[in-house]
């Protein structure tokens, strides 16, 4: 059985800006390979500047890799075919506040991907919007709301709805929980896990909250300054970290939990 998503030797090099006055080498992301099965959750962990957001962007096509291939269900994703990619791999952004257009209503926000990527007619689109809203635990009435009328948690749900509306197979989420309050965060986590179970989604999420990583991810990928440090089952990594860097991360997390 082929994996849902197969990433091979993905490389990225930020073009160094050549300037008369200073030369600075760009950021590089070394070859990264991993697989993701449907219903599986992969966590990408690392410090700021480790390139974890960049990896996410590469996956959804917001940045172009230097080399490497991405296969979806064994089919190669070309960097030109945006449609193919965005129907299947969707992104959820860190700040739901900023990733939702404040100037248009919720229904319009949700309608946009449908308009751009499907041939559905108005009624079908409306149907789909209502359906998706319900799926993420929002109400039909929310269709007429603007972004600023929603609470943090609702926004995050909406962002999720926007990702789900095209029935994707993989969802890439960049720090989806970081900006949420604890109680709302739990709700969101539960929702995502539920949806994953129901829809068989592949879920890739970027986080620095190791507690959550440990709880919801099947496998983890540790990045350090663009280098892949360690990858494997989450439990394994947390219990028997091989790399020093990983160990440092894990122990610092443990030190927080341990009661005084």
């Amino acid at each position, binding site marked *: 059985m082929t994996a849902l998503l197969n990433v091979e030797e993905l490389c990225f090099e930020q073009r160094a800006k050549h*300037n*008369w*006055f*200073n030369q600075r080498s760009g950021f590089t992301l070394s070859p990264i390979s991993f697989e993701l099965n449907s219903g599986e959750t992969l966590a990408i962990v690392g410090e700021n500047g480790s390139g974890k957001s960049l990896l996410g962007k590469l996956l959804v096509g917001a940045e172009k890799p230097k080399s490497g291939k991405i296969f979806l269900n064994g089919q190669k994703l070309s960097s030109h075919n945006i449609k193919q990619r965005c129907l299947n791999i969707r992104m959820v952004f860190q700040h739901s506040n900023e990733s939702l257009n404040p100037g248009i209503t919720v229904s319009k926000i949700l309608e946009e991907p449908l308009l751009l990527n499907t041939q559905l007619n108005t009624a079908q689109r409306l149907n789909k919007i209502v359906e998706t809203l319900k799926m993420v635990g929002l109400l039909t009435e929310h269709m007429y709301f603007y972004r600023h009328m929603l609470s943090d948690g609702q926004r995050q749900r909406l962002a999720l709805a926007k990702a789900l509306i095209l029935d994707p197979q993989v969802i890439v989420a960049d720090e989806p929980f970081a900006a949420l309050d604890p109680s709302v965060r739990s709700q969101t986590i539960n929702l995502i896990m539920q949806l994953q179970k129901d829809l068989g989604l592949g879920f890739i999420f970027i986080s620095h909250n190791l507690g959550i990583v440990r709880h919801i991810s099947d496998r983890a990928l540790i990045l350090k300054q663009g280098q892949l440090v360690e990858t494997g089952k989450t439990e394994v990594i947390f219990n028997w970290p091989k790399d020093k860097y990983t160990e440092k991360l894990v122990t610092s997390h443990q030190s927080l939990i341990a009661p005084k």
Partner: protein
Amino acid sequence: MMLAHVIRKFNLLILTLLVLSILSFMLVYLFPGDPLVNLTGLEDIDQETYQRLTVLHGFDKSYFHQYWYYIRGLFDGEWGLSFSSGLPLANEIAQTLPASIELSAYALILSLLIGVPLGFVAGFQHHKTTDYGLLTASVVAYSMPIFWLSLILILVFSLQLGWLPLSGRISLLFDIPHHTGFILIDIFFSDLSYKGAAAKSAFYHLIMPTASLTIVTAAIIFRLTRRSVIEVMSSTYVQAAYTRGLSGFQVVMRHGVRNALVPIIPLFGMQFAVLLTNAMIVEVVFSWPGIGSWLIQAINQRDYPAIRAGMLAVSTLVIMLTVATDLLAKLINPAQMGTAHAES
């Protein structure tokens, strides 16, 4: 990094001036009449002279050549002659431009002296009576059509009260030799026996034009400053400074002033164009012998070479000033310097 910025700005400046010079060269063709006449300002010339000028200005060659000769002429100070006076334009501009600059400079300085402190006062007193009062006054001041304001000043101070003269830079009885073109400076360095009286007269003549320009400009500067101050005073670091136990005065002096001024200095630079437009109108109303009234006269007399040269001179001046303010703003703003650092 500063150097890089300066060089980039300088490149842009050169580019802009190049574009401006091309535009002004195009005017030679765009204005009605013979291009060569529009260029040289020589009317009613005979065939032979015309031929000679054609060769001299490259009008027998391509546009590029013509432009090249034009640029060379500009640098040699050969800007052509004025239709109406027959005098070299370079001289005419050298006489009128300083008058405008003098007027605008005083107005600008006064506006800064009035607008900035009041902006600070209003900014600190945000949502209080002082703030509302000043804000209302500023809206009124800057909604005022400047020509009307000037006329009202004339009606009140010249015609009703008879306090101030209403036209010119100085009583014509005084003949101030032209050196720098800035009349107060010229008076100061002249060896005339009536220096004191002349300075007094020049000063009286300055009051109303400067006042009307100042009222409008200060209102704009006030508004810019006030907004900036309000933003700075509500920023986290000012709040943090308060919690550090600094007194209001200390916070304002150490953090408020500089941070409020830094973002608005480039905006001040953008006011030059407005200031000069207003100055040109004021010049007409007060018969101030500056470039504005000179240009208006030129348009009434269809003096095309003068319009071309005047446009080039004024816009060059404004652009240079704008770039200079921009650089100044960069100089005093470490944050911008830093981001330049980060970007490049």
